[in-house]
């Protein structure tokens, strides 16, 4: 079959409808009903987005995608989809505020044996960054501290410089708005300049 070429990407621009950010869209721990929550350790991830010169970048769209607490995806491409947690959304979206602040509530994802690479994937969360000035979205992956599997993870290991790779590890920090008793991690996203976040191309 003749292959089609993907439609070109274009910037989201500054006018993404504010009402597209619904209540609970940045909470991955439920699908329909907040009373039915996903299994696993509930965690809070927060930080700020900066452009060049450490200028806070507001009006940026962040999206997360991750496996559930047992390392399963509720998607037909996952051979273990049948075991996926029915109450785990896996996807979330958040708008950055005036000072670049964002936060998400999720559960810590499980590790899994990846059938494509044959390698063990350490717990991780995929992140997309979209906004004005970004003609294509930027993508990266967040990893967890103190995980012995990070070094052997095929995505973590794709970064040649270990010091750069370690920038993708979440940092335990007191959450500015984390609910009581929920472990919080900070991850600042530096689009350009000193401390620039490593981004991938898929």
């Amino acid at each position, binding site marked *: *079959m003749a*292959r*089609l*070429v*993907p*439609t*070109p*990407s*274009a910037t*989201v*621009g*500054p*006018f*993404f*409808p*504010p009402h597209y950010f619904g209540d609970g*869209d940045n909470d991955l721990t439920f699908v*329909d009903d907040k009373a039915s929550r996903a299994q696993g350790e509930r965690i809070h991830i927060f930080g700020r987005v900066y*452009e060049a*010169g450490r*200028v806070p*970048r507001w*009006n940026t769209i962040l*999206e997360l*995608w991750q*496996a559930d607490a047992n390392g399963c*995806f*509720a*998607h*037909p*491409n996952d051979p273990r989809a049948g075991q996926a947690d029915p109450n785990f*959304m896996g*996807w979330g979206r958040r708008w950055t505020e005036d000072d670049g602040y964002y936060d998400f509530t999720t559960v810590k994802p499980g590790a899994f044996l990846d*059938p*494509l*690479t*044959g*390698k063990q*994937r350490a717990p*991780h969360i995929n992140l*997309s960054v*979209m906004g004005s*000035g*970004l*003609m*294509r*979205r*930027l993508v990266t*992956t967040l990893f967890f501290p103190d995980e012995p599997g990070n070094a052997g993870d*095929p*995505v973590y290991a*794709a970064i*040649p410089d270990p010091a750069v790779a370690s920038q993708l590890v979440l940092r335990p920090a007191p959450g500015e708005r984390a609910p009581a008793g929920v472990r919080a991690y900070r991850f600042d996203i530096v689009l*350009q300049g000193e401390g*620039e976040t*490593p*981004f*991938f*191309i*898929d």
Partner: protein
Amino acid sequence: MSPSPSLPNHFLPYEDAGQPAALVPGYKETLTRNPARPLILRPATLTEITGPTRLARKLPTGIRDLSRKSPNGPRAMGQLILVRGRLLDEDGLPVRGSVIELWHANAAGRYMHPMDAQSPAPLDENFLGSGRVLTDDQGRYEFVTIKPGAYPVPNHPQRWWRPPHIHISVFGDGFMSRLVTQMFFPADPLNDIDLILNAVPSAQGRARMIARQTPMLEMPVLNLVGYEHDIVVRGDRQTPFGK
């Protein structure tokens, strides 16, 4: 364990001439928001070939008439249009049940957004401004709206005007198929000076962002001008898992 040949892990790399440049001279926001270091190539794993299958349970869909705020309410000013198309993967197979979000300026070229509060163009109280639809079992989508107006980019030294365009955000079948794009209208003279459309180096690439006008006799109704616009996202299922 070796990679399973039955998994759809053969994503083609982006064809750069068919995708926009990251840095666009004259579009200054691109210069300070893109990484200075090169992007790092990584292998596709299960995380990249999966994505949310239950989005429509979190994001309300079925908002397919942007030209008015209620089913029998007064219409927004402007030319009524019907935009139809298919969401396809690189094999040309339909992407079913996928959420598509769209938003655009009103007929005067103003967005219903606080960021556009400085625009001298009028608001239109009957214009909905945004919609969200789901592709059907053949990957088709459609929506009714009014043709957006052009508008000048504020304080631009070259007096860059954005041609009429519709923003389209597509989720597709997985993380790698996520796409945000813009749809342009055929033969608009402002297309030639648009920095965003012309950030795509190849003419074929730019053509993939421009809708095709539906012949009038093929339109199902008389009161709408029709446009056809297929959207292709990355990914394929020519060897679907488990088949």
